[in-house]
C-alpha cells in the first residue's frame, strides 16, 4: 500500500501527545505533588521522601502499566475487527475475558473447595495472574476447538459469545455460594486495576506486549489482504489458516496477558480502533497498528487520570471510567459523520 507522509506526521504527533498525557497522569493523584517533584525524582534529588516513593513506586509503574494495557488492548481489538470483518468485535470475542473471569472466580469464590488440593499454590502472590491466564487459555482452546469445523467467521463470533454466557453462568453459581468478603474480592478484581503492579509483573507484561506487537506487525500485510475478504486474500497468495492462527495468537498474548495482570478492562479494545480510523484516513495496517497503539495508550492514561479523582482519597474503578468516557465519544463521532467508516 502507498503510505502518505501525512500519516507519518500523525504518528509523530500522537507520540508527542502520549508523552504529554503521561506527564499529566504522573503529576496528578490523591496526594498533591508539585510538577517540579517529577523532574526531581528522575534526577534523584527529591525534596520529600514520601513524594519520591509515590512517584517512583506507585505513579510511574502505574503509568507504564496503563500505556502497555491501553496499547495492547487497542491492537488486539484492531486485529479482531479486521480478522472477523466486524466492527463490533473486540479483543475478547474469543472468550479471553470470560475465561479469565472464570479462572479468577474459581480461585476466589471456590476457595473452600480447592483449598485442600492447591493450598501452597493459592498462597502464591502470582495465583491471581496464573488463574486468570490459565482460564483465558483454556476457554480460548475450547472456542477454537469448537470452531475448527466452522467455515463462517460470524459463527466463530457467536461461539465466543456462547462460551461467555456459559462461563458467566458458572461464575454466578460460584457467587451464590460465596460469602460477602469473597464476593467483594471478586468484584474488585473485575473492576480492573492498573496500580500496584510489581516490577516483575511489569516486565512479564512488557514481554507479552512486545511479542504481541511483533506478531501483529508481521501480520500487517495479511491483515491488509484480509480487508478484501478471505477469498481475495487467498487469491493473493495468503495462507489463510496459518495467518489466522498467528493473528489469534497475537491477540491472545496481548489481551490474555493484560487481563491476567490488570483484570478485564472493557471498551478500549473495541472503541480505540474506531476512534483512530476517524482521523487516520488509511486502512493500511502498517500505519493503523502504531496509530491504534498510541491512541489506546493515550486514552487509557486519560481514563486513569480521571479514575484517580485527583485531590481526593477515593478512586473509581478503571473499568467504569473507560466506558463512561469512551462510549459518548464514539457515539458523538458516529453521529457527526453520519456513517461508520469501516
Amino acid at each position, binding site marked *: 500500500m502507498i503510505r502518505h507522509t501525512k500519516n507519518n506526521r500523525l504518528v509523530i504527533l500522537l507520540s508527542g501527545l502520549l508523552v504529554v498525557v503521561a506527564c499529566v497522569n504522573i503529576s496528578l493523584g490523591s496526594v498533591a505533588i508539585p510538577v517540579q517533584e517529577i523532574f526531581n525524582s528522575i534526577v534523584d534529588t527529591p525534596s520529600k521522601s514520601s513524594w519520591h516513593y509515590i512517584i517512583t513506586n506507585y505513579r510511574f509503574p502505574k503509568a507504564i502499566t496503563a500505556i502497555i494495557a491501553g496499547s495492547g488492548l487497542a491492537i488486539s481489538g484492531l486485529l479482531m475487527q479486521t480478522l472477523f470483518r466486524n466492527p463490533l468485535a473486540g479483543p475478547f470475542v474469543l472468550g479471553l475475558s470470560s475465561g479469565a473471569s472464570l479462572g479468577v472466580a474459581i480461585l476466589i469464590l471456590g476457595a473452600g473447595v480447592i483449598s485442600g488440593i492447591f493450598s501452597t499454590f493459592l*498462597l502464591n502472590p502470582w495465583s491471581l*495472574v496464573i488463574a486468570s491466564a490459565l482460564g483465558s487459555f483454556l476457554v480460548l482452546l475450547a472456542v477454537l476447538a469448537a470452531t475448527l469445523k466452522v467455515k463462517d467467521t460470524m459463527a466463530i463470533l457467536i461461539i465466543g459469545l456462547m462460551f461467555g454466557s456459559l462461563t458467566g453462568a458458572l461464575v454466578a453459581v460460584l457467587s451464590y455460594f460465596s460469602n460477602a468478603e469473597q464476593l467483594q474480592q471478586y468484584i474488585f478484581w473485575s473492576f480492573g486495576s492498573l496500580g500496584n503492579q510489581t516490577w516483575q509483573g511489569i516486565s512479564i507484561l512488557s514481554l507479552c506486549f512486545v511479542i504481541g506487537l511483533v506478531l501483529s506487525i508481521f501480520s500487517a500485510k495479511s491483515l491488509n489482504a484480509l480487508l478484501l475478504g478471505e477469498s481475495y486474500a487467498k487469491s493473493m497468495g495468503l495462507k489463510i489458516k496459518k495467518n489466522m492462527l498467528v493473528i489469534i495468537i497475537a491477540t491472545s498474548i496481548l489481551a490474555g496477558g493484560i487481563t491476567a495482570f490488570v483484570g478485564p478492562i472493557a471498551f478500549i479494545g473495541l472503541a480505540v480502533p474506531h476512534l483512530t480510523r476517524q482521523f487516520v484516513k488509511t486502512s493500511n495496517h502498517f500505519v493503523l497498528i502504531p496509530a491504534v497503539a498510541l491512541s489506546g495508550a493515550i486514552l487509557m492514561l486519560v481514563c486513569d487520570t480521571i479514575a484517580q479523582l485527583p485531590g481526593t482519597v477515593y478512586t473509581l474503578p478503571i473499568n467504569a471510567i473507560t466506558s463512561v468516557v469512551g462510549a459518548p465519544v464514539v457515539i458523538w463521532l458516529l453521529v457527526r459523520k453520519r456513517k461508520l467508516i469501516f
Partner: protein
Amino acid sequence: MNFGSVFKCIATAFISSMVLICCDQTTTPAKLTPENSEIKYATGFTITQRENHSVISITASSSSSKKELTYALAGKDIVVENPEGYHAVIRTPLEKIVVTSTTHIPSLEALGVENSLVGFPNLNYISSKKTRSNISKGNIKELGSNQDINTEVLLELSPDAVVGFTLDGSNKSLKTIEKTGIPVLINADWRETHPLGKAEWIKFFGALYNKTKQADSIFNTIETSYNEAKKLVQNIKSKPTVLSGAMYKDIWYLPKGDSWAARFIEDANGEYLWRDSKGTGSIALNIESVLEKGQNADFWIAPGQFTSRAQLLEFNKVYSAFNAYKKNKMYTFTNKKGATGGVLYYELAPNRPDLVLKDMIHILHPSVLKEYQPYFFEILK
C-alpha cells in the same frame, strides 16, 4: 505449520513460565524454638524474647491457606542479626501506625497509644468516641476501602508499620508499601475461636509499643473477670435453648458449633441448638431445618442485621412462628452504634469477651448478675 505443533509450543511455553513463577522463592524464615512464650489462649501468634530484641511469629492466612510470618521487634539502635530471616524488622516503640480493622482500635486505646493512629480505611466504621474525636481533629486520614487502600495517601503518611488482617484483598497496595520499606504486619485475631484468644492479641500490640507488662496486666484482668463470670453459672442445671442468626435472601446463616459466637453461649451455660455442627465459620441452612430445630428455642441471640421486630416481619412473615419472637426473647447488638454508624459490637466485643459473657449470662440467666447493665446486647423491640 499445523495446529497441533503450534499448540504444543504454546502449552510448553505457558507451563514453563508458570513453573518459573511458582518457584519465586522468598527467603526461608529463621526457625524458632518457642521460649518464654506466655500466650495462653491465642493460637495465631507467639512472642519470643531474644537477647536484644523480641520476635513475633504469626500464622497468617488468605481465604484458603495459611502461612507463617515472623517479625523482629527491636529498638531504634539495635542491630538485628540475620534480618533477612524475618518478614520484616520493626523498630519499637511505634510512633505512627496504620491499622485496618476496627478490632485493632480498642487495643490501642487500652494501651493509651491511640494518638499514634494516623490512617484507617473506612473511617465511618469506627465507633469509639476517643478515636472519633481524633478523626474530627483530622489526625487520622481516610484511606479508602480495605479492598483498595489508597497507596498514595498511605505512602504520604509514612507510618512506622501497617497492620493488615488478611493476605487477600488489600494485598496489592500493601505489597507496594512493603517495597518502600514500610513493614506490614498481619494481625490474625479474627481467626481465633476462643473468646480469650481473641482478646489476648492485645499482647501483639503491647509488644509493638514496648508495653508488654501493661498488655499482660490488662489481659489478666479481662481473663479473671471472664473466668469468674463463667464460674457463676457453671453449675446451673437448667440450660435455656438458644437460636441464632437470620435469613439473607432465602438462606439462614448461623454460627457453627465451635465458632467464637457459639462459645459464649456455651460458657454462659446455654444450650446452643447447633452446638454439634463442626467447624468455626457459619452454616447456611434453609428455613425448614431451622424451623424444625429452633422453633421452640427459649432465646434468640443476634438475629442477623435486623434492628426491630417490625423489620423482621417485613422481610419474612415466617419469623413470627418462632417461640422466641412470640415471647419477646430476641436480643441484638445491632442497635448500639457509634456516631457514624459503626457497630460497637464488631469493634469492641473481640477485645472485651468478659463483657460479652456477662451480657450473655444476664440474658440467659437473669437471676444471676441482677445489677448488671448489658453492654452490647439489648432486647429487640
